[in-house]
């Protein structure tokens, strides 16, 4: 509770490990929670959460060298694909399931989200907003697949296969009758809700079923 009030008050967000979405997630997660990080990379966020919030963390990551570095730093990471990765976990076995900057890379995003909400009591979903004005302008003026700060890849080598905007996610949450407990929109390090779908580069949603 204090964590979320804090975030709301501050117009700026600091970085954790050089990432503002990590800072937001770091504030959303309650101390001593059980956390599963999907697409956890080298486990930096989980290590930070373990050291600063005493969480019991686990991760899933598909990239072998990243998994090795995560385990080498003492984080329990499982090498696997998040599109098929959660089936073995019992219901509500974690307090939070984190999916940071990866939703748009999954093959079946809805299935992944449903599994997250089954296995976790809360889901924290952070994604780059495809509705940002830079994306719209890039498309409008150049008439090509948008390339912006948040979507830097060429269409042919982009890991992103399911683009979504803030309004898309809100519509999905409404359709699925999910409860959105918190939503935080950022542009650079500035936090704001004004014309979020146009102004925000990144969105973080705290959702439950």
């Amino acid at each position, binding site marked *: 509770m204090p964590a979320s009030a804090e975030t709301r008050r501050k117009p700026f967000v600091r970085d954790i490990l050089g990432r503002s979405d990590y800072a937001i997630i770091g504030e959303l997660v309650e101390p001593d929670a059980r956390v599963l990080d999907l697409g956890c990379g080298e486990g930096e966020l989980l290590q930070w959460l373990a050291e600063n919030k005493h969480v019991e963390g*686990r991760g899933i990551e598909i990239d*072998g060298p990243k*998994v090795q570095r995560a*385990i080498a730093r003492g*984080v329990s*990471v499982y090498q*696997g694909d998040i599109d098929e990765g959660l089936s*073995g*976990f019992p219901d509500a076995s974690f307090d939070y399931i984190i999916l940071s900057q990866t939703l748009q890379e999954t093959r079946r995003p809805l299935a992944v989200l449903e599994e997250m909400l089954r296995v976790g009591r809360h889901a924290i979903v952070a994604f780059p907003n495809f509705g940002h004005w830079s994306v719209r302008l890039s498309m409008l003026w150049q008439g090509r697949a948008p390339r912006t700060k948040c979507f830097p890849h060429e269409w042919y080598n982009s890991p992103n296969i399911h683009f979504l905007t803030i309004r898309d996610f809100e519509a999905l949450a409404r359709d699925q009758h999910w409860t959105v407990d918190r939503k935080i929109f950022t542009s650079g390090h500035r936090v704001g809700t004004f014309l979020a779908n146009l102004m925000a580069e990144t969105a973080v949603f705290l959702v439950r079923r």
Partner: protein
Amino acid sequence: MIAETRTACFDSLTLDCGEALAPVEVAYETYGQLNSARSNAICVCHALTGDAHAAGISHADGKPGWWDSMIGPGKAFDTDKYFVICSNVLGGCRGTTGPSSTNPATGKPYAMAFPVITIPDMVRLQKMLIERLGIERLLAVTGGSMGGMQALQWAAAYPETVVSAIPIATTARHSAQQIAFNEVGRQAIMADLDWNDGNYYDSNPPARGLAVARMVGHITYMSDESMREKFGRRLRDKETFGFDFSVDFEVESYLRYRGTQFVSRFDANSYLYITKAMDYFDLANGAGSLANAFRSGNTRYLAISFTSDWLYPSYQLVEVVQALRSMNRDVAYCELPSNYGHDAFLVDVGEQTEVVRGFLAATFKARA
């Protein structure tokens, strides 16, 4: 690091088959120092043909241990920090009681009168040894192949004793293919007339049969790639085919050499008993399901498999990891890239060292 094999003796050991062995001897080695809290002990379990000499240079014959690349000062199992124990398995022929040991009832070697043993029997004996050494909890139990089966059995049977388990290139139960290769090995031994129903201790051992068993084993420990790299179609000391059945190819020479060399250090009956124990092993047995085998305790797990290991393919360890996850156990898993096949856990230890070192350090910090 000079290593010396010692022996512990126990009055009796009750086996899964219902019989008891009395007395029982265990050959073991230790490396490093047990700390005052007795919280830094690691039990290393060996594979089918290994022995207690896991690390350092043998005082007896000057040879390095079978996992010397992983155990020692500054290595993955850092003997500057941890106290490492390795013992020869029950049924073995390298100092622990097995079919070649003297049967007190007859004064002769047991041979086929030796009772059929299991992986849980091996682990029960190891636990007796650990207790004899004054250790109540193990920071880690680890091993590759059959050693990994023992590590899993340890964690499932004695979760209060095992702080963490590191099963490598292993499975919770043999597949038909794994049983099949073991059966070929056993049949090669038993088809050798010198085997003589196991009674060869006062005559010639079934050297040809045991050598063939070892040759088959070696093929399964390598990969198509590693054999291509190591031998290709190169000929051995000749420019052209001999047009006879002497050695033509490098790979033939290698397998023959490995087979013959093996006979001098391994007992054929031990090979029969230990491979049978591996084939019988099924962690789900008696628990109802594999997941149920891990229902109690809070042991941490690090499971490691290798991309080119076709004898113990990754899916088998993934199955174990899935079972652990379904019980909410703390488990890390990685599939390491290697061309060395099943042998990778012994010879391709760069990445394995990094993950084991980090996992152990975190476990020691959190739990010791």
